[in-house]
């Protein structure tokens, strides 16, 4: 077999990839470029097309249109076993009739690589499961099986490693630990990782670049910090963390900033943080960027102030308290306050004002669902 295995990762390119299933379109003309050696996460809710994308890259699904290039080579027509790609499946898909060691050696044996068992053992040691080499998959716990699946893929040194929600079945503590391990292994082996997940924390924690997918297309792509600080669509702002969103027509506009009027309050966003500068727009702010005041605050034009409103819900989450404040004619606003022990003790039903710095506002390119047709 003429599979070209690069010592390190190769880059992946999708060109206008489209996938139609009977009755619906899973992917709409997707363009994607993942540089070699990068840890890339596809993030989205179930049914957004992220797993379909991964299966197309693996060759398990054929695209309706478009091209898949790995390391610059068009592999669109190649069968899965001809691609320099390995997958860690969500179900692990370990072979139940083989020992752990034979499972890991499977890919090496198919490619007739020298010393398959020795290399498989090395890979098992990498995931600290060398002692379980002679066991059967059924005898291992979920976390151990997940690591075997990872070793079985990694041992082949694929140009591209695909991870299909491999941590989905693990409990929270184990998942966090595997995230750290996975990231460490990726740095160590230098392969290109394409990770598919619906867990936004997992994606932001591990990936160099995150692409947020929704309904068969990429909504926004970038470094985790950039995505979080400057979400460009209502979907991203809500899927990646939480956001307070305000919709209104532009009331004021100057060189630096735009303002909309919502329920008698002026909400301002810097122009360089707004996607849209005309008509009806949506401005958002992250709850942890906001603070509340018991008296009407006297703040300059570099702050946005809304209120007064009434506290209708308080949630204690450990590191922070989450307050839900109902402001007449504006809607509900969420405020996160760090639990540092010096924040004002506040009770349900109290009257408060909410403020944040204008520089923390962001303007979206679209409007949240329910506002499109107005």
């Amino acid at each position, binding site marked *: 077999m003429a599979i070209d295995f690069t010592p390190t990762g190769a880059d992946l390119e999708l060109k206008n990839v489209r996938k139609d299933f009977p009755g619906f379109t899973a992917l709409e003309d997707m363009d994607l470029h993942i540089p070699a050696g990068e840890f890339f996460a596809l993030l989205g809710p179930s049914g957004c097309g992220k797993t379909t994308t991964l299966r197309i890259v693996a060759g398990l699904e054929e695209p309706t249109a478009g091209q898949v290039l790995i390391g610059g080579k068009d592999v669109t027509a190649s069968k899965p076993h001809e691609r320099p790609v390995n997958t860690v499946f969500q179900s692990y898909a370990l072979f139940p009739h083989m020992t752990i060691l034979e499972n890991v050696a499977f*890919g090496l044996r198919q490619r007739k690589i020298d010393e398959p068992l020795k290399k498989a053992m090395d890979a098992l040691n990498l*995931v600290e499961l060398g002692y379980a080499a002679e066991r059967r998959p059924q005898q291992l*716990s979920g976390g151990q099986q997940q690591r075997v699946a990872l070793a079985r893929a990694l041992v082949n040194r694929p140009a591209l490693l695909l991870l299909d929600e491999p941590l989905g079945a693990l409990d929270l503590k184990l998942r966090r630990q595997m995230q750290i391990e996975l990231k460490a292994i990726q740095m160590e082996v230098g392969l290109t990782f394409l990770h598919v997940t619906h867990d936004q924390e997992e994606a932001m924690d591990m990936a160099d670049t995150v692409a947020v997918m929704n309904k068969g297309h990429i909504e926004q792509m970038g470094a985790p910090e950039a995505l979080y600080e400057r979400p460009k669509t209502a979907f991203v702002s809500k899927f990646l963390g939480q956001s307070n969103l305000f919709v209104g027509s532009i009331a004021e506009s100057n060189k630096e900033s735009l303002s909309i009027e919502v329920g008698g309050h002026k909400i301002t966003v810097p122009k360089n943080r707004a996607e849209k500068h005309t008509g009806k727009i949506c401005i958002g702010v992250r709850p942890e960027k906001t603070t509340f005041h018991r008296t009407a605050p006297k703040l300059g034009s570099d702050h946005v102030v809304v209120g007064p409103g009434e506290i209708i819900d308080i949630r204690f989450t450990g590191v922070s308290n989450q307050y839900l404040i109902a402001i007449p004619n504006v809607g509900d606003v969420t405020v996160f306050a760090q639990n540092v022990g010096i924040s004002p003790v506040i009770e349900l039903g109290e009257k408060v004002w909410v403020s944040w710095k204008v520089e923390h506002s962001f303007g979206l390119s679209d409007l949240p669902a329910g506002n499109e047709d107005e």
Partner: protein
Amino acid sequence: MAFAAFGSSPAKEHKSSTKSSKIVLALLLPGLVYLGLFFFTPLMSLVITSLEVPAASYAPGAYEYGFAWENYVEAFTTYLPQILRSFFYATVATVIALLISYPLAYFIGVKLRPRPMLQRLMLVLVIAPFFISFLLRTIAWKQIFSDGGAIMQTVYSLGLMDRSQHFLGTDAAVIFGLTYNFIPFMTLPLFTTLERFDVRLLEAGSDLYASPARVFRKVTLPLSMPGIISGTLLVFIPIAGDYVNAGQNFLGSSKTTMIGNVVEFTFLQNQNYPLASSLSVMLMAVIVALIGLYVRSSGTEDLL
């Protein structure tokens, strides 16, 4: 790294109390009594009969207790061709049944999984022939393959066979009948195994550089072994002792006599009970030995 923390804990040993073992014994009792009465006793009777000698009166069918192991020598030397033929037929028919049943069972058990209604319909079709008597169906095949039938007439007129030749009474006709009659016993165990086969393993195999043919050999086939073993046993054993298909009233002739026909003939016609019994004991011993070897060499201990 703290991976060691996830090492498996030693499996807890299950201690069965005396009380539960008594319950188990009580539950097993009816089965054990049944086996004793209807399997062990007749088997002993068969072994004893196989060693009997003709009675002093020499009346037909009259025998008395003895230890005539020569009965076995006689049975073996006289009927070796029939014994060999039985196992030859059984082997060929089992292999053909497996080759036909495997794709069928795979199709029903794996490919039809998204369509349960069609899956059930296909299963009913596999079992449907059982609704009609085994003898009637075999006689029907005799009609179909008779020299005057449409099939043979076509074969003759196409010049594929000379009119002096016949299909009925040949090895092929008997093997055909055996295969046809026992195929459901192969298909059903294969289906139950393949029905549970995890198709995601196929994707894993092809993802790990195995071509479809190699995935079949390395993944699908080993995981189908329990079905293949039980299917071949369920087909091979009854075929080795079958006496209907090879009978001259059905698809066979004097040239296709199997050990089952010999037992029938010696027992019912000649009333030579010791010889018939020694043939039966021999057949059983050979089958048990073959199965032991087979199950061992196929390495099913891991799968069972």
